[in-house]
């Protein structure tokens, strides 16, 4: 059970629509406080470190250009990556979807006779729901990223892609560790908590010879995989195990090693508000006597190539998973990540999830935004998230329009009628008249409307609405013109 009092569902096929899923969160003061506090800390750090870069906008432009170029030539760069990685002793596998990726990974683990596996933090593995699949197949998975350990032991789900346990505070971590590690005298001192985690992890590192990782970047030129992290536990997974299996989305490829110069700068500053993340691991195939001696890369499509073909949506794939958009998002700041019903929350999740998981599983996500544009402003690779949100909204509407049940839906009916009205000024003016007459019944003596039925109740549940003035602007203007004549 999740310690936060409700069970997050991070499967877009099963999760409740966003407006429903937010309700338990909005009523949870502890969780909202944890999220807002953590976000504010990251935002202040990011703000300082972005401000000190006088060429920040140039870096963003470069970041966008590098990622866009990689996507435009994705096939060629992936082939190059496969060649170079293979030449260096790695084995490259291609997975069309989540099911195929899971099967490939399970088969590799069976070949290793692995009944246990340690994991470097990877959101892509959560995307394909790898852990529950492996557990069901009899392979125990052990997360090694501190936040992921907290979630795994707390039977909770990630609520953020960089700081997955952002919604959990220190005393809650203490409770989880004390309960699951059998340390009843554990204090909530950060050093004590870290020591407990280290103790727990060291045994896993020494005992389990097989590891799974994600990838921040793949480098086509050298066939290398890049993972950035803060704790060094990923580095441990790259040092002790005999076998490493890396799962990476096909969009993660960069053309040249030199491109890391731009990407690592924008990633660290955007993600954690650091000049450079503490650990950056780059490995190329297999190096005799150093690190894993067997190395596999599973390249995952899972809907990505279909996004690639779409003009407006393609920019979604530029994403380097820095989470700056969710840290800057005023919606995410209130809701945290679980309400998005996907491992990818926040603004990037609102556009990525519906595209990866087919639209009908995530109808409400493109609407989970006030279109304030903060996400676009901070994105280090200039993904115009509001533009993609609007494109997806229009796809939702086009899909829904055909459904008979939607014909009388107040929102759909209302917007269709509104359009008819706006298309002729006389109709608009007539509608204003009838609107004023109709709303009179709801207008109190103070001249304000305190309660409306149907869709209107969604407004008046927390806001009043001033009653409609007797004279419209155009009415006033016409009268004034007449008087002047």
């Amino acid at each position: 059970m999740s310690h936060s009092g409700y069970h997050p569902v991070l499967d877009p096929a099963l999760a409740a629509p966003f407006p429903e899923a937010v309700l338990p969160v909005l009523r949870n003061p502890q969780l909202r406080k944890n999220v807002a506090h953590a976000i504010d800390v990251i935002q202040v750090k990011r703000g300082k470190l972005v401000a000190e870069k006088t060429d920040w906008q140039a870096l963003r432009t470069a970041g966008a250009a590098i990622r866009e170029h990689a996507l435009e030539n994705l096939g060629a760069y992936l082939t190059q990556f496969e060649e170079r990685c293979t030449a260096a002793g790695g084995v490259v596998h291609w997975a069309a979807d989540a099911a195929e990726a899971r099967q490939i990974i399970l088969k590799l683990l069976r070949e290793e006779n692995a009944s246990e596996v340690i994991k470097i933090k990877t959101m892509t593995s959560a995307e394909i729901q790898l852990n529950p699949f492996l557990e069901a197949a009899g392979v125990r998975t052990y997360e090694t990223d501190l936040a992921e350990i907290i979630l795994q032991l707390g039977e909770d789900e990630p609520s953020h892609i960089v700081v997955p346990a952002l919604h959990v505070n220190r005393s809650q971590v203490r409770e989880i560790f004390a309960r699951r590690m059998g340390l009843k005298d554990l204090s909530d001192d950060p050093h004590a908590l870290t020591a407990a985690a280290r103790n727990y992890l060291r045994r896993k590192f020494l005992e389990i010879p097989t590891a799974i990782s994600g990838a921040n970047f793949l480098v086509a030129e050298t066939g290398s995989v890049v993972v950035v992290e803060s704790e060094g536990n990923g580095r441990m997974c790259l040092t002790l195990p005999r076998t490493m299996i890396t799962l990476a989305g096909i969009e993660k490829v960069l053309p040249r090693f030199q491109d890391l110069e731009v990407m690592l700068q924008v990633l660290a500053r955007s993600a954690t508000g650091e000049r450079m993340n503490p650990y950056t691991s780059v490995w190329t195939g297999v190096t005799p006597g150093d690190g894993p001696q067997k190395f596999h890369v599973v390249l995952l499509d899972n809907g990505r190539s279909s996004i690639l073909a779409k003009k407006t949506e393609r920019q979604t794939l530029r994403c380097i998973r820095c989470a700056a958009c969710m840290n800057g998002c005023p919606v995410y700041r209130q809701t945290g990540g679980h309400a998005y019903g996907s491992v990818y929350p926040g603004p990037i999740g609102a556009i990525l999830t519906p595209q990866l998981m087919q639209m009908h599983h995530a109808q409400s996500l493109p609407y989970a935004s006030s279109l304030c544009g903060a996400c676009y402003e901070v994105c280090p690779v200039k993904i115009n998230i509001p533009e993609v949100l609007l494109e997806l909204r229009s796809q939702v509407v086009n899909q829904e329009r055909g459904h008979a049940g939607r014909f009388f839906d107040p929102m759909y009916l209302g917007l269709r009628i509104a359009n008819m009205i706006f298309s002729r000024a006389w109709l608009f003016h007539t509608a204003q008249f009838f609107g004023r007459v109709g709303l009179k019944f709801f207008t109190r003596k103070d001249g304000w409307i305190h309660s409306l039925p149907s869709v209107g109740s969604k407004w008046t549940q927390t806001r009043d609405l001033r009653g409609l003035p007797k004279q419209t602007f155009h009415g006033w203007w016409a009268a004034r013109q007449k008087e002047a004549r």
Partner: protein
Amino acid sequence: MRASLFITCYNDTLFPETGRAVVKLLERLGVDLSFHPGQTCCGQMHANTGFRGEAFCQAKRFVRLYQDTEAVVIPSSSCVAMIRDQYPGLFEELGNEELRKQFTALLPRVYELSEFLVDRLKVEDVGAYFPHRVTYHASCHGLRALHLGDRPWKLMNKVRGMEQVPLANLDRCCGFGGTFSVKNAEVSSAMMAVKLQDIVSTGAEFCTALDNSCLMHLGGAMHRQYAGMKTIHLGEILASTEAEPAEALA
């Protein structure tokens, strides 16, 4: 200088006093104003909710009504953002080359109110008098889509008698978001609660902005909560003089 006013749907219906104030202000500055009676809406509500086909109708209508106008002034930053950011894509998608050309020619003559005053009329002191404590809410569309920058402050700094109180977290959305306020009413309200806290703690009498849509949301909440504050469009403050104070003061 001739200009045409575009008083978009919700301002025409719900906030006619803003339109009246803008007329008073611009005529005082010597602008020869006109108002096309055929105008209705910019189509933002439709486009932002996913009803792109419907938004086409309003975009075409806008070009038809204003293509011969010297300047179009719109006292609503989100409606201007709709025209500037979304119409180009709509016209490209429509594929009507003539219409697209007409729009491209018209676009540089479309102004948000503070842009029109500062950039086109090159005026900062509009002769306003408003002896009140005021805090300014920088609506997201004005801030991030139109990049209004310091234009609102250039104008506010010259208002006689007005005391400005800076608003914390100025770049944070108030939670209105058009149909978002209804489709995600609960999140919208949570965002509004945070914004109201910042606004109320300024101790100002009025919260002003260049967009009545945010103000409808914030003002509606202030009224519900007996917050002891009011909202007022910046155009109304700028129109206000000693002889003719803003209608909101009546």
